[in-house]
């Protein structure tokens, strides 16, 4: 017999700072990150650094991701570990950022990722600043997509994205990225020092009826955790508009598809 972890009926609303094309390069509300002396220098190619960078990636996508912008780290340059005692462990990382839909180099980012103590089950806390012109102007495409969906006579849906051979229809690509942004909220929250999460697949998504300005979608998403190698099935209800950004309204993990507690893994 084994205990099964599951979260049911979880509801939360995450407010995203409105995405403005003329936004300043730095993340709004961040104070200058002091060049804190890390207690221990880490090899940037080793997994503690790369896992921290992945968390920073999720953070950036929740802030700046959109149906037309998707960010990833293209390599950790420097990493340090600061033991925060009862608070947890803080990683200081410098990594290069790429906007992946255009294969565009976005320069260097500096992040602090605080993993709380495992028993506290709190999501990691991230602070991040990116140098260089951190501007991806997607407002025209977003507005275009938004108007098309609002004026459409039927509700849109899609499935099996990408398909088995990795193909994504060009019309479906914005919904792949939208799913990715929404997933980033979940992946950010679910990350710890023993995870490396990516969105693996969209089983299906359906546009829902709405009366207000926000478009609403139901997504069935598969996440992949590299460390446990598990596929995690999540159901997400999300809203989106160019002005409102992406909000995850409801998120539910489907435990039927993953009956093993990750705590059973010997690390």
């Amino acid at each position: 017999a084994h205990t099964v972890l599951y979260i049911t009926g979880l509801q939360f609303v995450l407010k995203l700072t409105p995405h403005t094309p003329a936004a300043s390069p730095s993340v709004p509300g961040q104070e200058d990150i002091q060049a804190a002396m890390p207690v221990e220098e880490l090899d940037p190619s080793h997994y503690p650094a790369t896992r921290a960078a992945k968390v920073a990636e999720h953070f950036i996508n929740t802030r700046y991701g959109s149906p037309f912008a998707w960010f990833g780290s293209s390599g950790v340059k420097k990493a340090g570990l600061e033991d925060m005692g009862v608070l947890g462990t803080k990683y200081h990382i410098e990594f290069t950022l790429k906007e992946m839909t255009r294969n565009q180099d976005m320069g260097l980012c500096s992040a602090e990722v605080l993993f709380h103590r495992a028993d506290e089950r709190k999501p990691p806390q991230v602070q991040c600043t990116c140098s260089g012109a951190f501007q991806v102007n997607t407002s025209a495409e977003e507005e275009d997509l938004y108007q098309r969906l609002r004026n459409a006579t039927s509700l849109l849906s899609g499935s099996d994205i990408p398909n088995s051979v990795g193909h994504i229809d060009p019309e479906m690509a914005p919904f792949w990225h939208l799913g990715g942004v929404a997933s980033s909220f979940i992946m950010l929250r679910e990350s710890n020092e023993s995870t490396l999460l990516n969105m693996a697949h969209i089983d299906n998504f359906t546009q829902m009826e709405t009366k207000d300005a926000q478009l609403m979608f139901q997504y069935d998403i598969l996440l992949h955790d590299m460390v446990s190698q598990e596929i995690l099935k999540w159901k997400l209800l999300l809203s989106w508009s160019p002005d409102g950004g992406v909000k995850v309204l409801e998120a539910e993990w489907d435990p039927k598809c993953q009956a093993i507690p990750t705590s059973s893994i010997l690390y």
Partner: protein
Amino acid sequence: MSYLPANYKNVQCTPVCKQRQHAKSNKTRTSFCHACFVTHGILIFCRLIKGHEARNYDYTIYHPLAEISTWMGQMVSENPDVVTLVDYGSTYENRTISLLKIGLKSDVTKKAVWMDCGIHAREWISPAFCQYFVKEILRTYKTDSKVEELLKNLDFYITPVLNVDGYLYTWKDNTTRLWRKTRSPGTDGCDCIGTDLNRNFEANWGMVGVSQNCCSNVYPGFKALSEAEARSVVDFVEPRKNDIVCFFTIHSYGQLILFPYGHPNVTAPNYNELAEISQAAAKAIKAVHGMTYTVGSFAEALYPAAGSSMDWARLIGIPFAFTFELRDEGSFELPENQILPTCEETYAGVHSVITYVHNKIFYSAAITASATLWTTLSSSLLYFTLLYFT
């Protein structure tokens, strides 16, 4: 029958081609094209002539198991002096596991290179690479003297799909695409199917990076070598361990070049050399399409994990063992338009490793011999010079 002009090579007679609609991508592609083969001006039968490639196998798409099996047969029939098909084991569902042995014939036992692809079912780019690798060495060994030398001095044992049952299962429908393990049943009342083949080898089996719950994707099996597929590898490699100098196991995703060990408390005696070789391979990869592959020991760069095939290979004494994690950095469903660039860069990386290992074995012995000769010569010269002047 029809008569053709004297210059019949590459002439367009009407090829009879089987069109096949690809089940997943809906792409229509041609398999088994027949064209004209003529002798004495008489049309005898048809084979496609496209440059020097007799059969038009598409290396830029993913192939189901049946096509890979047919392709393996073609590689043998098209290159009978250098390619042999070896059936060396079977899977849980009783399917044959086969490899292609590639090398110029020799009277003496040769050193060898092992490469397995598709240990994890969902990593489709891996079997695609093995096929590309075979194609590439066969295409170039007659004209590239370096490749010819490799095939002269080494035998290559290439397994395009090791986890045959799992690979077949991932082709079933879009709900099975992300299967990883074998298809053997759970034991001891545990209800789930499959063992992680890359945790099933006798290399600190079960110690770390595993879950003893058989539903886990890192379930190492109820005991080491519980899986027929793993035993097949061991039964082939173990007797040849003194000849196998290089062991590659190809995976995805992650863009990593990993070397032993996966167990965090074990360090390979040639750690530094393995790191150097891996760095050089990463550099070779980057030179092709600019992609960054991270280098490190398995335990340091990816995660601690015991029971991998690479760890086992190193432990039994194969000096150079590597795990390659190919493109991309987030998905098992790598788009088909990335197959070719991925294969090209991986080939450069693998080639760089093989060349290093080959030269170390076949040249440094020569270097030592000639150094000795030179030392002898120069000291003799000095002696006679001294004699002359005294």
